[in-house]
């Protein structure tokens, strides 16, 4: 099997979100002498790029994104030690702490953004829903995050986004982080009014802002 067909197989497994097929393809590729770096850059990454593009065209949706991201993470557990051994540690684009704010249980939008961030190479720490402002800040401090991303769907839960910024200020660490806000009841005006660093109307906007923040 040529390397090109190996790369296609890896890419296809990512697009299908099939972690078993991806792990098998990774094992076969390694056996054939393809390096971990080549597997990632020429096989898996193009697959992830294709997933993102299909999502932007509304051809695939959240489940496919989540499955592709999960398959990627499983494969990376095999590949990262190989990268380290070869002295070629894969650099994360950045670290993001993400969650839906306290009082709000809506997770879909946040999950879409989290999946897209993972696909774009970010290390994502997803705190789930109903996350207290202090929990965002503590996690960011713990993992050395670059970005805090807070989602709020309800008009009565958006004030919790402001709380995160207040907590950052109270700890004297506001300037360490880029704070991005989004969700059904938020807007650019709202983001401006609370002093957030960015507002993502769509998941794609959020990723573009995150990439800009770490560039």
């Amino acid at each position, binding site marked *: 099997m040529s390397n090109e067909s190996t790369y296609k197989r890896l890419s296809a497994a990512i697009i299908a979100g099939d972690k078993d097929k991806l792990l098998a393809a990774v094992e076969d590729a390694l056996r054939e002498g393809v390096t971990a770096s080549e597997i990632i850059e020429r096989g898996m990454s193009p697959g992830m790029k294709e997933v993102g593009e299909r999502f932007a065209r509304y051809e695939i949706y959240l489940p496919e994104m989540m499955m592709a991201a999960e398959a990627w993470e499983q494969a990376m557990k095999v590949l990262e030690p190989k990268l380290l051994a070869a002295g070629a540690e894969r650099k994360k684009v950045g670290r993001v702490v993400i969650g839906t704010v306290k009082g709000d*249980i809506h997770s879909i939008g946040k999950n879409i953004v989290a999946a897209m961030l993972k696909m774009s190479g970010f290390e994502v720490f997803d705190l789930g829903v109903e996350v207290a402002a202090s929990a965002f800040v503590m996690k960011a401090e713990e993992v050395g995050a670059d970005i805090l991303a807070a989602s709020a769907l309800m008009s009565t839960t958006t004030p919790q986004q402001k709380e995160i910024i207040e907590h950052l200020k109270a700890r004297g660490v506001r300037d360490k982080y880029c704070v991005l806000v989004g969700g059904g009841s938020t807007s650019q005006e709202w983001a401006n009014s609370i002093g957030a660093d960015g507002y993502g109307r769509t998941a794609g906007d959020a990723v573009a802002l995150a990439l800009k923040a770490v560039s």
Partner: protein
Amino acid sequence: MLSFSTVVERALNGPICSERDFELEVFVPNLRKVIEKYGIKYEPQNPVPADNDLADRVWAAAMEFLCETGVYCLDTERLILFTRDEIEGALETGPRGVVFGEGKDARVIPRRWPEDKTPPFCSGGGGGCLVSSEWIYLNLVKAYAEDHLSDGITTPSLTNVDGQQIIAGSPLGVEGAIRSLILTREALRRAGRPGMPIVNVIATGVKCQEHIAAQRFGTPATDHIEVGTVHEMKVDFDSLNKVAYSLAVGSLIFAENGVILGGLSGGPAGTAVVTAAYNPVDLLILRGAVQHPFPTHFELLTSSRDAIWARNVATQAVTRHSPLPVVNLGYTLAGPMTKMGFYEFSAWVIGAVVSGSSIEIVSQAKGVALDHCSSAEPIFINRVAHAVAGMSRKEANKIVVALLEKYEGQLRNPPTGQRYQECYDMATGKPNKELIELYREVRQEMTDQFGLRFQHASPYL
């Protein structure tokens, strides 16, 4: 029908499952399987399908999916499972002919079928619109209640209490919810319709304690509580607590399901199946007197072509098989004082009404822009809904396709329109000349282009 206490028992003792496994190992594969098995395919050219076989296949897929998947309880991390017999038993014994409101303002929300001539129940009033002042709140609700075609009220969302921003779960949330109910009741009194049913008691309130506190200041037996499921096929204790309270005080429940197109349900086919599958869930778990669906595209909300298709297919599936009345609700991306806003509301409402549903008109401008709310569009839509009752689905499809062609190009960049303060007289609460002219222009267009005959005069237009 299974008792609510049995449902709670299952929530507490059902099979343990992680949320991730429920989503990716249970929900998604089960949904994909039934979509393929029953051959459910999105048809963009037919946003209002006239295919009974498709509707029946969606229903069959939905019931199979529900039996195999169950509902996930977030607080206990357990599955609430139902057998097919239990589901069918709920459908056979669910509520029928329930009266909403009281006195001369009382209404029955009818069970309707596709192409049914029975007039739909029309609810509105700025549901979920963000309003900055109690005066705007009062005027909006009053104007809507003054329309004789308005059957129920869904309330706007107050953003502050005496200048302090309302925060869910805080004392301000409780006070905001109480104040909303008192303001709504006062607006209905001013409109001369004190017994009008309040469909969504407290859009301002989110948490269970806020709903309960507000109802203490209203009429529990006739003011309804909206209780929602969580995306997708999930419930939490907060929702179940609202149900427990409503059952104890005899309050009616609007069981709300906003399936996210693009979320776990995937595309339009999955969204339709899951929306239909919620119907028995609304009976068994939420103890609803009405199913209140709003399939919502994750970026384009409720007026995109695929969301309209999913809504109409699911509505037809449900109305052909379940006695639980359906009241669809929807938003607009465009704000007040824009033609696009009129078109968006018209497109989803026409499809929903001919598919067998009643309607609830809620937020404009995505429910995000402060004070971007108006009573003119909902009042117009009441007339559209009545004008298309009894229309064939094929005829409605032609109209909806034409409407979509008018606004689809603007979905990603909709006009925000004007604030209430800009298009209404703040003292009288009546629309200004420009809004009245826009109303008349769109009404004429709908008659000239689509042959819609509006038989009901509006209060002031």
